[in-house]
Every structure is written in structure tokens, then in C-alpha cells.
């Protein structure tokens, strides 16, 4: 089946960067928050740039999340990027505590340790913890582009696909059933990012 990617548009996030990346890879994608586009899509992407609470408020205001929840529960792959992955959490602690989408119950978003330079900006290597098709053809130790001060914690061991080290070991890639989340920006991670986006589109329901 030919893939149709829907980049979920909630009025924030770097949607254009993500669209540009799929365009360069020759993969059909559309930026939308329409129920019809979400239902038709083979894959959903929740991009992210911004603060947890501001992002959650925009998601709640602009996305038909009950529809998205149903699509996810029926097996449609969803890729969350950066804050788009952090909102999988049950709750987030950026500026103040705020509930997340609770796609991964028990998980929470917390700040990187106090004693290191923040935000964590730039290229850092990932360590593979569990094999998963999202990392096909990507080397253990590959560099990806990160830009964040918070991370998703309290993830169970099986869901932790790759970690990154920056003052603390934190999840770089998580996966649970058809959900995949990445803390880095694959759309800005050049050849490794291109491989990851291609791998995501190859995941099928």
C-alpha cells in the first residue's frame, strides 16, 4: 500500500520542517488537522517544538484527539517528535505540572539535571537498548540532532529502544505497540534522520 502521511497540525510545531523532510525523501505527506485526512492516512506524525503545557493546550484546542486515539488503538502508526513525543506522557513538569495525552501511562516529563548546560542543543549519539525496526540500518552510536531541556521518564525497559547520555541517561527512542517517539529531530538529523523517517513509513498496521 502506498503510504499517506498525515502531519498533525495543531498550530504549533515545526510542521514545515517535517513536511520538507518527507518531500525530500519522495514520501507523500500532508499537514492537516481534518478528521478525513487523519482517517485516510496510513501514518500519523505529531511534530513538536515548544513548551509542554503550551503544546498540550494547542493539541487539545486544535486536534480531534478522540479520533486520533481511536486510529492509534486500531493500529495506525504514530510518530511523536520531541515535544510531540513528550506529550505521550501521563503528565509533564515544564513550568508547572500539566496532564499529557497519557498514551504511555505512568510516564512523566521532567527536566534534565541541574548541573549541566541546558537546553541540550546539538548532535549527540544514541545507544541502542532494544532492537526495533525503527532503527533498521542505523548504527549503534549514530548522531542525531537534539534540542530540549526536558525528557520522558519512567518508561519501562521493553519500550526503551535507544537512550542518549547528557548528564543523565534518557530515552532517545521509545516504542510501544504502534507508537514511536523520538526525543531528537529526525527531520534535521540528515542521513540518520532520513533513515529513521523511512523506517517509520515502512512500519505497517
Amino acid at each position, binding site marked *: 500500500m502506498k503510504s499517506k502521511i498525515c502531519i498533525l497540525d495543531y498550530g504549533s510545531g515545526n510542521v514545515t520542517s517535517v513536511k520538507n523532510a518527507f518531500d525530500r525523501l519522495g514520501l507523500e505527506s500532508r499537514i492537516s488537522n481534518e478528521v478525513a485526512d487523519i482517517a485516510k492516512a496510513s501514518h500519523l506524525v505529531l511534530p513538536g517544538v515548544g513548551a509542554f503545557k503550551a503544546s498540550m493546550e494547542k493539541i487539545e484546542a486544535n486536534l480531534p484527539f478522540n479520533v486520533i486515539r481511536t486510529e492509534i488503538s486500531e493500529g495506525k502508526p504514530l510518530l511523536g517528535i520531541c515535544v510531540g513525543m513528550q506529550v505521550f506522557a501521563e503528565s509533564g513538569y515544564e513550568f508547572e505540572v500539566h496532564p499529557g495525552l497519557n498514551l504511555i501511562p505512568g510516564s512523566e516529563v521532567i527536566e534534565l539535571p541541574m548541573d549541566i548546560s*541546558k537546553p541540550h542543543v546539538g548532535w*549527540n549519539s544514541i545507544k541502542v537498548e532494544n532492537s526495533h525496526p525503527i532503527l533498521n540500518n542505523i548504527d549503534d552510536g549514530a548522531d542525531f540532532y537534539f534540542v530540549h531541556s526536558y525528557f520522558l521518564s519512567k518508561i519501562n525497559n521493553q519500550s526503551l529502544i535507544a537512550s542518549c547520555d547528557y548528564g543523565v541517561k534518557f530515552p532517545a527512542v521509545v516504542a510501544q505497540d504502534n507508537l514511536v517517539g523520538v526525543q531528537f529531530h529526525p527531520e534535521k538529523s540528515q542521513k540518520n534522520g532520513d533513515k529513521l523517517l523511512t523506517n517509520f513509513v515502512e512500519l505497517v498496521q
Partner: protein
Amino acid sequence: MKKKRVIPVLLHKEGWLVQSKNFKEYKKLGNPQKAVQRLSEWDSDELIYLDISKNETYSTNRGDTAAPEYRDLPDLLGEVSKVSRMPITIGGGIQTLQDIEVRLRAGADKITINRAALADPSLIKLASREFGRQCIVVSIDYEEIDEKRHLRVGNQKTPNSNPLEVVEWLLKVEELGAGEILLNSVSRDGMKSGYDISFLGQVADRLRIPVIACGGAGNWEHMAEVLSETNVDAVAAANIFHFQDQSVYLARKYLTSKGLPVRPPSIQSRRG
């Protein structure tokens, strides 16, 4: 391991890429989109794109060049980001949260503010709350006069008229919620005399947020010096990257050979 970044800076003025010397002499270099594509093909770590246009002209108005014409900044940014696989920080002309949103939506990953933050420091706080501090880079220009550093606001000729000390301003900017500092010595701009090592070292040790060093790179050795002698997180430069096709590759190759923690040089990828 976290890598130190090597960041080319492109200066854009009214439809052209330009080269700058001491913030007053500008030489036209050519088409922005081509330059961005070239840096992206060489897998540059990031790109800082500064718009220093004096008016709202984004078209060269010349039918005799092959240069694309742009309607406005978002249009230009949209075209430029299509050919970029690297993160782009855009600066210039940002006054409001709306200006930031437009730029992020057009394809920028981060924005940088300079004068608007000095005029109204609360913009830093509001922007960091709205978009996350990681995408708010505050750019600070200073001059070196008699061993002292003075804040420089725009093109003003009287640097002492701003009562804020550079370090005082840096600490305030950090406290207000900036994600990164782009620290630029105007006195070294285009001079190829090396980075302001002692000051950069002092600042990078006092701040918790990453500092991007800018101003004075004349060769790769200057970059190695600032990366090995200070705790800055990134080195940025404009002119040194302009005239050589393989500049990004050569910079990282040199720095890697000196044992510095940068991404290893990668061969050119032609997929854009």
C-alpha cells in the same frame, strides 16, 4: 557523546547574501538558496541566517540574474528551508511573538532576537513560555574598547550610551529564559584575528545555557583554540565559510584531527 557545533552564519540583505566587515561594509555574494543548499549538502551542523535588510525588499529586482525573487521573509525562508537538512536559526526584524510564529511556521527551527530583547526584555520571557526556551536564541553584539566590552545596539556609534554591562545583560537574558546566546564581537567581525578567547571563556563559565562564539574566525585553528580553551558549546563564523565549497568538511576535518569533539566530517551528500 554530545558534540561541539560548527555553525556557518549567512547574512542576508535585501535579496542578497552579503559579507560584512565591522558591521558597516557589505559586499554582495549571491543567491541565498544556493548557499544554503551547499551548506546542507555538506551536512553542516546548523545554520544561522541573519536578515539585516534595511527595508522590506526580498527581491533583487534584477531580471538578468538567475536569482529567485522572494515576496517577503516567510517566502524566502520557505524556499530556503526546503533545501535545508540542517536546523536553521533565523534572526532579524523580530519584534513580537507573532513574528516568531511566522518564522517557525515558514521553516525556521529557532529564532534569534537582539535589539527587540534590549528594547523589551520581557519578550524573551514571553517567547520562551510560548515556544519553549530551546528555540529562543538571544544574540548579543559587543565592542572591545580599551580591554573593556561594551554592548552595541544596532549601528549606534556611541557604545557607552547603553548603561548595561555585557555580562550583566547576559545573566539577565539567561534568567529571562533564553535558550542560547549568540555572542558576537563586532570589533572582530571580518577581521580574521581570532575569537575573543578570554571573554568567551569567562562568559561560558558563568552561564548555564549554551554560548555560541562568533566574530574573528580567520582559519580553522582559531576555531580549535576557542573550542579547546573555553567551554563554549559552538563556534560560528560567516566569511570563512563563504569562499570554499568544502569549508564545512574542512573545518570538521581539522577539528577532528585536533581531537576536538565535533561530528566527524562527512562526504558530500547530493540529495539536498
